């Protein structure tokens, strides 16, 4: 979905209408395109996947598609066999023969009872261009192709043209060389823009003015070497993991509370830290996947591998009174199935929860076979100890102490009895209420804890018993409290999984076993009863046509504001076709061949000229490719919510670069926490925790921090694979008036007073100001100048 264009069009319309590429190809075939010279038609061949399927899928499949329950007249048009089968003496499509093709007659018909799509479908009639595509397709034999995304990526090396050396650039320039476009790529961005862009993209932090100067200097000598060195430095920075960790946490629907109406806080930040660390270590993406989906099932699973399974514990928990708990457990499994499908497969498998998928070949039963993998878990809380804690040693000591204390107490039972017998009403007055109650418990019924408390009271403050008892209490606290995190644990006996009619858990139907959709590669299970681990391995199998593409596309999207497949969460039939299919396949295969290294993928993209080129608008691009789909220039992108905060913190000199740890509570406006059913406490963090990166701010799903959500940070209700980039008055109010941002401005004011306006300007936007810009700021006084700088569009944008 082209989210940015949603805000801009005066009438709500199908977002697919904005997709230049699809339109351009169809139209250019016909010579009807906006940039097609008249009469240049009839050259290109009609291709099913590129030209025909989008029309059939949009206009026909809802009633004549894969889902038999909603199929009208028994006709399916999603397969060659279906489309050419005989129905009542006629065939919808007769390859090569338009006049005998019933579908064609219906398309042309003006009779409301006959015409397709029928009025009741509320579809716009087929355009002249769409009809022309169908006509040519039927006449040329109505050939079907398997949907591109279900065919494994075919690696085509880009043509060597004597042009650019970087494979990405060769693919992009081939697209730009299209006779309809003939757009040259833009020149390389200037070094200041480049270091700011790369730093923000790779670490989410600004370069300091000194770093900018050094880079400009180095670039003057050898621009490529300087840039290469910069990229390596940024990729090695621990802040890389924070920046890209947030990218992954969006997809993991991470937040720090249980959601629904009660929205109690939860502890799962160890999972967040695991993600950051895994990315910093460049854990191969296949392992990264397996540990999150099934780390607990790996042989000899480590604590870290168990923490990783927190991925699917980021579902909401309903603690409202009167609920049916099973209903909400099932809802969380629904969410896990949908999230797994969206994040790794780029498929809207959730659509098959209630019925067979209307557009993609996923049956409802197959949905519940996926569900079965994710339906066998216990949902425990795991204690997590700091690496410095010798858990096994201390546990041994703890157990030994327990034995020692028990032995001591049985040996000295008579001492205690004597002490008890000697108690008088006067001496009893000095004992606590709890002890007095314990004294009333018959000796044989007293617990270990009760006995210890009586012995401790009878013995007083010194002696071997007291020492052992104190140490025991200390270890009890250390081992049984502290940090916890939510994890998955397989049940010894799997739950029974059935299809639910219409997705309603009160209407169970046929029982199903775990399995994967038939349209994809076969599952290779280690045993009769496939597990989550088999599912995870199936997902990252090199035979999977989807995952490599989906992830490469989603990384690409971060750098250009749009994926090569624009519908980054739907690679199915209703998704958009890739703008650069060969590039996508090349990136996907490169990603897998380079050992699923995300850092390698980043390196490949950011080293390209396509990434490094200027983002300036160009008249010719605006005219021929208004949405810049073909990338004749870079995109100017408003920073993500957390980065808006981080940049302001960095510019004002307040930023704490501390990594990891429990979430923090920076100041938020009054009254925010009182909006939900339960008013939550927000005690503002002290010291450097007040100035941590946005990644570490505590997120209550029900009342998230306004300064983040106003810039479109997700609340963690469901997976977010692409953030909206809105542009609103509430953002202006935040940057102008929010107490947090005002505090940053105060700090920047001090910098202006000490180092001057130009220094402050450069801390915000990296470049040097024009004299006219300085003049505007000079008139304001240092505080308002600081506020102005933090409010600039350029400050919250990477160019």
């Amino acid at each position: 979905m082209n989210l940015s264009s949603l805000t801009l069009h005066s009438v709500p319309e199908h977002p697919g209408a904005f997709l230049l590429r699809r339109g351009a190809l169809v139209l250019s075939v016909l010579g009807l395109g906006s940039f097609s010279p008249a009469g240049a038609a009839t050259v290109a061949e009609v291709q099913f996947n590129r030209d025909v399927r989008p029309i059939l899928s949009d206009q026909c499949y809802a009633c004549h598609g894969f889902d038999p329950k909603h199929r009208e007249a028994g006709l399916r048009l999603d397969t060659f066999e279906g489309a050419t089968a005989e129905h009542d003496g006629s065939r919808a499509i007769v390859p090569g023969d338009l006049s005998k093709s019933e579908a064609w007659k219906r398309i042309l018909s003006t009779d409301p009872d006959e015409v397709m799509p029928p009025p009741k479908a509320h579809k716009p009639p087929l355009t002249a261009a769409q009809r022309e595509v169908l006509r040519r397709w039927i006449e040329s034999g109505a050939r079907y192709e398997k949907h591109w995304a279900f065919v494994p990526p075919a690696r085509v090396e880009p043509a060597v043209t004597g042009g650019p050396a970087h494979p990405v650039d060769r693919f992009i320039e081939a697209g730009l060389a299209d006779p309809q476009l003939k757009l040259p790529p833009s020149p390389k961005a200037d070094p200041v823009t480049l270091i700011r862009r790369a730093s923000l993209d790779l670490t989410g932090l600004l370069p300091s003015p000194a770093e900018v100067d050094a880079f400009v200097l180095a670039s003057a000598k050898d621009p490529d070497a300087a840039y290469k060195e910069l990229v390596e430095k940024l990729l090695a920075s621990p802040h890389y993991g924070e920046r890209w960790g947030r990218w992954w946490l969006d997809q993991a629907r991470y937040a720090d509370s249980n959601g629904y109406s009660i929205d109690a806080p939860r502890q799962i930040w160890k999972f967040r830290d695991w993600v950051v660390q895994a990315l910093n270590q460049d854990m191969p993406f296949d392992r990264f996947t397996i540990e999150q989906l099934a780390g607990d099932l790996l042989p000899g699973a480590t604590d870290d591998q168990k923490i990783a399974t927190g991925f699917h514990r980021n579902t909401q928990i309903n603690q409202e009174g009167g609920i049916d708990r099973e209903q909400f457990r099932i809802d969380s499994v629904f969410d896990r199935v949908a999230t797994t499908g969206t994040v790794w497969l780029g498929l809207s498998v959730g659509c098959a929860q209630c019925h067979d998928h209307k557009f993609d070949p996923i049956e409802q039963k197959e949905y519940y076979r996926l569900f079965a993998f994710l339906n066998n878990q216990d949902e425990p809380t795991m204690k997590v100890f700091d690496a410095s804690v010798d858990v096994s040693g201390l546990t041994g000591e703890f157990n030994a102490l327990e034995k020692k204390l028990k032995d001591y107490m049985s040996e000295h039972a008579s001492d205690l009895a004597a002490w008890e017998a000697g108690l008088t009403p006067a001496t009893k007055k000095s004992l606590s209420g709890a002890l007095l109650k314990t004294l009333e418990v018959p000796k044989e019924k007293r617990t270990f804890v009760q006995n210890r408390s009586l012995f401790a009271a009878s013995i007083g403050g010194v002696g071997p018993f007291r020492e052992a008892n104190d140490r025991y209490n200390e270890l009890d606290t250390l081992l049984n409290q502290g940090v916890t995190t939510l994890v998955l644990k397989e049940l010894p006996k799997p739950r029974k999984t059935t299809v639910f009619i219409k997705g309603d858990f009160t209407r169970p139907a046929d029982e199903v076993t775990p399995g994967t959709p038939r349209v994809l590669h076969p599952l290779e299970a280690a045993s009769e009863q496939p597990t989550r681990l088999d599912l995870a391995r199936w997902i990252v199998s090199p035979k999977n046509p989807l995952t490599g593409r989906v992830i490469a596309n989603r990384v690409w999207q971060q750098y250009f504001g749009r994926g090569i497949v624009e519908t980054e969460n739907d690679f199915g039939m209703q998704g958009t076709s890739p703008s650069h299919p060969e590039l996508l396949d090349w990136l996907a295969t490169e990603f897998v061949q380079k050992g699923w290294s995300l850092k390698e993928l980043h390196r490949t993209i950011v080293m390209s000229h396509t990434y490094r080129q200027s983002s300036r608008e160009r008249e010719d691009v605006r005219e021929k490719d208004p949405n810049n789909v073909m990338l004749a220039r870079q995109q100017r992108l408003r920073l993500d919510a957390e980065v808006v905060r981080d940049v302001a913190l960095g510019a004002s000199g307040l930023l704490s670069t501390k990594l990891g740890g429990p979430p923090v509570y920076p100041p938020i406006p009054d009254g925010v926490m009182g909006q939900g059913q339960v008013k939550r406490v927000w005690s503002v963090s002290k010291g450097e925790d007040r100035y941590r990166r946005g990644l570490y701010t505590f997120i209550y799903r029900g009342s998230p921090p306004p300064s983040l959500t106003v810039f479109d940070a997700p609340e963690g209700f469901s997976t977010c694979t692409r953030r909206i980039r809105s542009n609103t008055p509430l953002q202006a109010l935040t940057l102008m008036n929010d107490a947090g941002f005002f505090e940053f401005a105060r700090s920047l004011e001090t910098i202006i007073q000490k180092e001057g306006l130009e220094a402050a300007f450069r801390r915000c936007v990296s470049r040097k100001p024009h004299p006219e810009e300085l003049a505007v700021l000079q008139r304001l006084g240092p505080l308002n100048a600081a506020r102005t700088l933090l409010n600039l569009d350029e400050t919250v944008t990477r160019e």
Partner: protein
Amino acid sequence: MNLQHLTRRHLFSRCSVGLGSIALASLMSERGLGAALQKPKMQNPLEPKQTHFPAKAKNVIFLFMAGGPSQLDLFEHKPQLNSLNGQPIPDSYTAGKRFAFMDSSHRSNLLGTKFAFGQHGQSGAWVSELLPHTSGIVDDLTFVTSCKTDLFNHAPAKLYMNTGSGLFGRPSMGSWITYGLGSECENLPGFVVLQSGPRGPRGGAVLWGSGVLPTTFQGVPLRAQGDPIVNLSTPEAISATQQRQLVDAVGELNLRRLVETGDQEIATRINAYEMAYKMQTSAPELMDIQGESQKTLDLYGIKDTRETTFARNCLLARRLVERGVRFIQLYDTNWDHHGGPTENLEKHLPMKSQDIDKACAALVRDLKQRGLLDSTIVVWGGEFGRTPMGEVRESTGRNHHIDAFTMWFAGGGFKPGTIYGKTDEFGFGPVENPVHVHDIHATLLHQLGLDHRKLSVRSQGLDFRLTGVDPARVVKDILA
């Protein structure tokens, strides 16, 4: 304000940076940006938009009684329920049904109402003694007694009434409507939320969230305490003049960047700063009701003009409609009368009714006398109703009930003085004309000139609609 105006203001006004701007303007025209400024992209995303067909109404005020008011003690007159008070409900009614607090409540006995009912107005609508003022306006109201929803827990049911889905994260009705229609107000958000009662509604901000729609369309709570809008006030250390200078300076520098880069998003941001600045004065002005006549304050029953009450929120709703705000939602909480020390039918339902009765009637009357009722739809209702069976707690109450409950509508082309839908002798289920939540949504959109089947947005492979995937109907019988 569009950028043309802004530019002109910079060019010709008192603005101290005028000279620089003249140079800028010529630069802009050299680069062909003058024409670009008139493209739709330059517009405020909330700019009024074309409807699918001519609209009957322009604005909506939704009076949301959070918790689920008891239709059987307010609007549904069921003598049979009273005469069988204390008897078990026949199994035929409850077989196969699911309820909240399943284990404790579904076997309880029928509970008659303790309140007297009377017929009112030309329409002869039944209203209980708890709502004397509402009784006086029944001929302006359209009652639907056969409303039904799908979910019986508070938060999911509230989401359902607001977003058409029980799942968190879908766009709310107010967001859909401002997305579809834009807003006619230039200095306030298009979708505003007002709250009264001891706590926030269950579900919180997701009830007015924009889900997959841009956040531009999300509801903005006008808060009772502190700034009416988060971060509305200029920081204390900053004077009004300095704030204006800030907006001007940001605008000036952003304009330069727009010329430099050609990025139209910067123009949208310049507009956003202008609107934000206007909101800083228009929102406090809106909230200050001291200028209203004593007669008006008495009509609503407002004693203290600064106290946050449902009555004050009703008056604010009228003021918002006057300013062109598209969708106004009032939440009044604590309508969850299960029985028990704090939420029972004997004591607390009458108190809640008194909190809202006079103001609801006043709002309808006030809109009518100002000629605003024709173009404004007023909706009254909760997320569900309550069971004909009583709940056995320390005092009397009723459980959540989703099969039949009452809502009323006024103005905006609804047929006044109408009672639609019929329920069985106990008010358990509809026997005529059931109206599902999605039908209510479809009908409201219809009156606003929007076709619920066309108002959609694509996300995660689905075309999301307020009315979901199952067919929904526009209830023509309740429309004038």
